[in-house]
């Protein structure tokens, strides 16, 4: 029998009773791979015709599309206007003018675009100007809260409100106001939970909350949240946020003195950085891994990682990271018995950190140097070193518990009563006070 036509095969698939000589056609199809494959293609096409998406055009059953289209257009217009309106407040020195202007009270500024833009500016400001970042985020929150629920389709307003609370939490975290930061995160999470589905907002909330908990030494909770944040970012295909969550997890493990596990986590990110050719990730992870090797007394590995970090940070010209790496290298050199070289390097690092305005880091590096001087029998140099740090703090107007702690140490060094236990106590206090500036210093018991 010759091959049946497409029309015959089509009818066989559709209504076999209407096919003439059906038995012989079916027998042929069963024995002929060509015809069988053609027949199967027709059946597959028929199956696809029964799927609603084969009949989908843009407008079919699509009552909400026009609303979304209008919203996209409106948001874009609002964003452009907001960028123009807020241009004068983008510099850190605009803080006072911004607070005075009370933008949320002015109708031109009461738009989602302005709230979004304020959040973006706050986001970029919180590390170095957290007070201004807080004012910006609070203004965004006032605007977003006062917008009617119905101003955004499909409960989207909660995304905006959640974002503004999250930015407040971020700024409060940098200000060391932890209870308020946690309360702001609760608000942000409550807003995000009112969205129809989980999005990037909750990933960010989990990340900030994990950072906060780590800074409060609640390491177990922090670890769980950092892991959850990374996992949720991965579900949403946000690799950078996934890596950021993993990086935080490494820090938590480091704080728990699980240096091998921390190094393993950071090594995973290092591989990612290398695969993407992302020099910043590579350098950041090399430094972190180098610090782990340092704690694990793996000098050769530490040296390799730290020198690689130093090379890349130097190429990228990031002075603060270059100095942090120099600091770690000084510690390594000291352990390897190159005391003079190490102390020279560390003295440079202390000056550089002060010059960068990183006063707590500068003080912590000075404490490392004091320990080295003590171990090298050069105790007489310690008071002068600590005097310099105290002066730096005083000149910077940092009249905080940290200053009191350093003054206490300076006095002990001057009277020859300084002990390694005092250094450890003050070091712990400086780290804590950096995160919570309102902490009061008390000498070790």
């Amino acid at each position, binding site marked *: 029998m010759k091959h049946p036509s497409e*029309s015959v095969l089509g*009818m066989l698939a*559709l*209504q076999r009773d*209407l096919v003439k000589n059906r038995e012989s056609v079916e027998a042929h199809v069963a024995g002929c791979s060509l015809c069988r494959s053609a027949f199967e*293609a*027709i059946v597959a*096409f*028929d199956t696809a*015709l029964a*799927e609603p*998406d*084969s*009949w*989908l055009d*843009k407008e079919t059953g699509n009552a*909400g*599309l026009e609303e979304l*289209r209008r919203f*996209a*257009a409106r*948001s*874009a*217009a609002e964003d452009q206007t907001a960028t*123009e309106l807020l241009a004068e407040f983008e510099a850190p020195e605009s803080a006072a003018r911004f607070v005075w202007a009370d933008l949320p009270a002015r109708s031109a500024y009461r738009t989602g675009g302005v709230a*979004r833009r304020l959040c*973006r500016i706050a986001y*970029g400001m*919180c*590390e170095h100007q957290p007070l201004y970042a807080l004012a910006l985020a609070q203004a965004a929150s006032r605007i977003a809260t006062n917008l009617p629920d119905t101003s*955004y389709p*499909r*409960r*989207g307003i909660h*995304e*905006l409100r959640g974002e503004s609370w*999250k930015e407040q939490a971020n700024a409060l975290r*940098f200000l060391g106001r932890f209870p308020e930061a946690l309360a702001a995160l609760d608000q942000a999470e409550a807003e995000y939970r009112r969205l*129809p*589905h*989980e*999005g*990037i*907002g909750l990933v960010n909330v989990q*990340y900030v909350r994990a*950072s906060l908990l780590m800074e409060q030494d609640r390491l177990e909770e922090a670890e769980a949240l950092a892991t959850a944040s990374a996992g949720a970012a*991965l*579900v*949403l*295909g*946000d690799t*950078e*946020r996934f890596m*950021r969550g993993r*990086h*935080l997890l490494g*820090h938590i493990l480091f704080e728990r003195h699980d240096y091998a596990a921390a190094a393993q986590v950071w090594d995973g990110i290092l591989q990612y950085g290398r695969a993407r050719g992302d020099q910043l990730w590579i350098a*950041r992870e090399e430094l*972190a891994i180098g*610090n782990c090797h340092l704690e694990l007394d793996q000098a050769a590995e530490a040296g390799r990682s730290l020198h690689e970090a130093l090379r890349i940070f130097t190429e990228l010209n990031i002075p603060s990271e270059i100095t942090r790496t120099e600091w770690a290298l000084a510690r390594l050199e000291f352990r390897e018995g190159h005391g003079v070289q190490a102390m020279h390097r560390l003295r440079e690092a202390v000056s550089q950190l002060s010059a960068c305005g990183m006063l707590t880091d500068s003080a912590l590096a000075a404490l490392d140097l004091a320990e080295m001087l003590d171990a090298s029998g050069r105790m007489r140099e310690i008071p002068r070193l600590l005097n310099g740090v105290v002066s730096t703090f005083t000149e910077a107007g940092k009249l905080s518990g940290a200053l009191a702690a350093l003054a206490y140490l300076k006095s002990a060094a001057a009277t020859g009563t300084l002990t390694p236990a005092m250094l450890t106590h003050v070091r712990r206090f400086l780290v804590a006070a950096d995160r919570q500036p309102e902490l009061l210093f008390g000498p070790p018991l």
Partner: protein
Amino acid sequence: MEGLPSEVLAGDGSMSVTPRGQEISDESAAARFDAVYGTYRPLLRKIAIRKFGIPVQAVDDLVHDVFATYLANPSNVRDLHPYLIGAICNASRQYRRRDDASPISSEGLDWSGPPEEELVEGVVRNLVISTTLSRLGVKCRETLQRFYLYGESALSIATSRDTSANYIFRLLNYCRNRARSIYREMRGPE
């Protein structure tokens, strides 16, 4: 120890942000949205239906939820494609948790259902068929739709047109083969 990368690791990739000073018309933003929507709606629908068993009548609602959340704060999204896929998965899980007597496990990253490539292939096939069908004449299109999509019997269609079921079968066969011919022109041989 070096500092943490702060939460200040924002991404760009906003659909609505334009360089300052560049005019943006409502039409251009709407057109860009249309392009994104047209590209992703079929895939998001397919994922929700095939992987999570979301009912067809509910699926556009979920897709629109995903787009609305994205549009509320687009600069939060660095990479739109994986974000939209992840978001529709989350929205589908939430729907199932809300409306199912036996909610699926939602915490893991694994999902059951067809693999990604199969889904994408299905989406492409549906898109091409949809275009194919729009090129058919009204009578062919309507007949195919009633029979295949709505599951109406040939006899019922025949009665409404005052003709025989056999004629409708022959018409269906002709129209479907015509559609396949257009489909092959668009996609190449199966």
